[in-house]
């Protein structure tokens, strides 16, 4: 062991003729350096979530965590390039400030409370059903309208097409017509 240590000691390597500013100075860690994307368990082909250019992203996952997001060079749109926001995508999904738990503020409450997801879903479903009933409008000015103006929705434009589709489908069936989107704004 000691021999290994001594033979790696840069001064000894210098004496053996290695350059003290080059190879002799290298540490074991340096010798072992590789790009971490090589160790990824999976790579997903994705699309940047910010603007509408639609730059291709490669999402590298290692041990159940995103280890890197960078441009997809195959993309004819972006050719592997990303802007500062696109380049910050890994931070977007991994930063410690991200809120990952359901929060609940009761009427007149002054603080957030924690709620488990299932309870929250049940409570929301209850409220939709109740409000829909209470605000149901079968006719308007003598015309059949079959709707509620009591429930509204505003969606951002980072929603997937599939998500928008289910939203519009469900709301329309519920009779909620005030369904709006960033696209208006």
């Amino acid at each position, binding site marked *: 062991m000691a021999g290994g240590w001594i033979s790696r000691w840069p001064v000894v390597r210098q004496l053996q003729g290695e350059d003290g500013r080059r190879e002799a100075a290298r540490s074991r860690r340096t010798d072992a350096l590789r790009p971490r994307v090589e160790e990824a368990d999976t790579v997903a082909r994705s699309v940047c979530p910010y603007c509408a250019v639609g730059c291709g992203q490669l999402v590298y996952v290692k041990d159940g965590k995103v280890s890197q997001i960078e441009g997809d060079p195959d993309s004819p749109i972006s050719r592997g390039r990303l802007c500062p*926001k696109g380049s910050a995508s890994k931070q977007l999904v991994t930063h410690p400030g991200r809120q990952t738990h359901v929060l609940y503020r009761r009427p007149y409450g002054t603080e957030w409370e924690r709620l488990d997801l299932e309870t929250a879903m049940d409570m929301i*479903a209850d*409220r939709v059903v109740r*409000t829909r009933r209470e605000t149901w409008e079968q006719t308007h000015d003598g*015309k059949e309208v079959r709707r509620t103006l009591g429930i509204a929705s*505003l969606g951002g434009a980072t929603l997937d*097409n*599939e998500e928008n589709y289910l939203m519009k489908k469900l709301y329309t069936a519920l009779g909620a017509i005030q369904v709006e*989107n960033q696209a208006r704004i």
Partner: protein
Amino acid sequence: MAECHPVGYQWVMEARERGAKVFHIDPRFSRTSATVDRYLQIRAGTDIVLIGALINHVLTNGLDFREYVLAYTNAATIVSEEFRDTEDLDGLFSGYDPESGRYDTTSWAYEGDTGKTEEMSEGDPRHAEAAGSDSYGARGAGSTATPPTDPTLSHPRCVYQILKRHFSRYTPERVAELCGISPEQFAELAEAVTANSGRERTTAWVYSVGWTQHSVGVQYIRSAAILQLLLGNMGRPGGGIMALRGHASIQGSTDIPTLFNLLPGYIAMPHAHRHDGLDHYLDREGGDTGWWGNRRAYVVSLLKAWWGDGATEENDYRFDYLPRLTGDHGHYATVMGQIDGKVKGYFVVGENPAVGSANGKAQRLGLANLDWLVVRDLMVVETASFWKDAPEIETGELRTEDIATEVFFMPAASHVEKEGTFTNTQRLLQWREKALDPPDDCRSDLWFYYHLGKLIRQRLGGDGIDRPVMELTWDYPEEGRHRDPSAEAVLREIGGVDADGRPLASLRELKPDGSTSCGCWIYCGVYADGVNQAARRKPRGEQGPVAPEWGWAWPANRRILYNRASADPEGRPWSERKKYVYWDAEKGRWTGPDVPDFEEDKPPSYRPPEGAKAQDALAGTDPFIMQSDGKGWLYVPSGLADGPLPAHYEPQESPIRNTLYGRQSNPARRTIDRPENPYNPPLSSRFPYVFTTSRLTEHHTAGGMSRPLPYLAELQPALFCEVSPELAAEVGLENGGWATVVTERTAIEMRVLVTGRVRPLRLGGTTVHQIVMPYHWGYGGGGLVTGDVVNDLSPIVLDPNVYIQESKAGTCDILPGRRPRGQALLALIERYRHG
């Protein structure tokens, strides 16, 4: 574009390197301005004057691409005798009702189109309704594909002559006086645009919300459309008008709209007063010619997708299950409904109106008056936390303990934690693979709505009002440990299947008889051959520049719309240089690197037989196949709420008098005259400065996806305004110091960047100072950096066509120093309100 779409901008830089001349026209000298050939500073809200003058320049000097114009536009079409232009009525078109502030558009029709023109609602059925769908493009029932024309373009009522008269007052002198662009600068622009259009060359226009967020925004785009049609720049490579949209799938959000007035594929939501049954609805919603002539197939297939086997010919395919509109149910109307207590429950999904929508105070007052609010996002955005940290809490207008709103914050999955498609700004659908499961309680919106739907269905009964929900097709396969609904199954439904459940290859296979179902007709074929076409990823190096095998563009994977126009009427390329889609007579097909936006085998010589319907009614020389006459519309006979032609009106709030017409602002604009939404009076000395809002490269929209990130927050850590050295000296602002910007709505504070990039505009005898503010900051949102909300300054005044607010041009005052706190802020605003 460099500022907000940097990666898209690589192509502009590349074009420039190859010799393209690039102009940037903007009130703000941005990173784009720094990297173009010529920057033209324009007063916010005057673009129609500039484009109008370009149109005038083209028309006066005969610089239009005559062969293209004659064959492909409605220049020769003759307009009804009833029509009166702004030239005749001093800034009004015929049909204006001062009482309601709306137009009856009957008189705008083509000669002979006297059939059932638009009948609209909200009391008076003849008034143009806003936020119309694209089916208006079909000109309404009762029209034909071949209205009367004058190919010599000399008939005084032909579109070409109307255009000439209408734009004659848009001169370089007016441009100088209203826009602040000198005649020399204008001449350079006009020369470049016209010299780079025609057979051999094309010019493209690129715009963003700087054109849409105005009380006359749609007409901005219209003016560009007129110019581009006159110059022959539509449907051709390197031409067109490109909307640079600001969100990953904002195009998708319009195609598959979470918008009140639309069903998927730009199909109009039915209206209580205009439509009784399906037939009536289809009859009213457009003409029979052009591709909209197939709308029964589109609508029936949609209803089949939603109500499945329960939707039959006998029950009108459950058309009655669709709720009915009775007017404006848009975002701002909804907010007023909240303030008035009519809206009880509100879902806000990946959106942050407390910061991102005009008049933030009205937004928050609305939120504070709800029974319940569900916010789904990555961070606790300001919309979710308004009850504890809104500015109104500080001023005492709201008290946390008095706000009854019950708030659910539901953490969302990020873009890598779910699969699905985004539709980018070029109509390109790209499938995202899921990289990993979302953490903790985070779920996709797909999961949320699917499971919410299931829970709601468990709670409903067989009641009449519940049947549309109970009978809804809602049975997607579940996957993974969170029981996510299969996004591919949803996409398959969107893309359409036949009676046997086999995916459709193209929208031409859609049937009006209920034998096909399709969730969004323009996306039909996205799952052709049972393959997720949007997931295609053939590397760019392995295909040509059009890259048709990367993702999938609607419709039918066409990358340039109306590309039939890239060939001359005989089907030959206009030039070798601009060869794109053309007729191969030998094979009897249209061909080229793109999918032809035309029936592949319809020859240029095709002429429709009498009484033909849908696409069969269009000739082989009609490239604009969605239009009832197949022509590009220089003049819009129906479908617009504020005129068949663009006319310059000043913004609602402007320090300048409109010298073009006796009308100061758009007569058809929508105002909301309520105490929550006061307007600065026009030409007010209390609010002498123009402000415009903008974005920065380093941030995203209301900041929820950028301010919490250290790597972005450090790059632009504070809200600031950009002011000219002259204004700084006039008001006493210091670079790096603080300023307070005041409007009738409220006052906000920000840091000051004094920069020579902003210049005072000399307009005739007056000088106008413009103040530029990025709007990314808010009071919370988990931001590492926070700041006042710029949209709190913007009034709610809407474009009458699409109900977009005018946030790109307003007036204000600016003071040195920080704003007063608490009650003192309200006192300051009071002082301004009462002069």
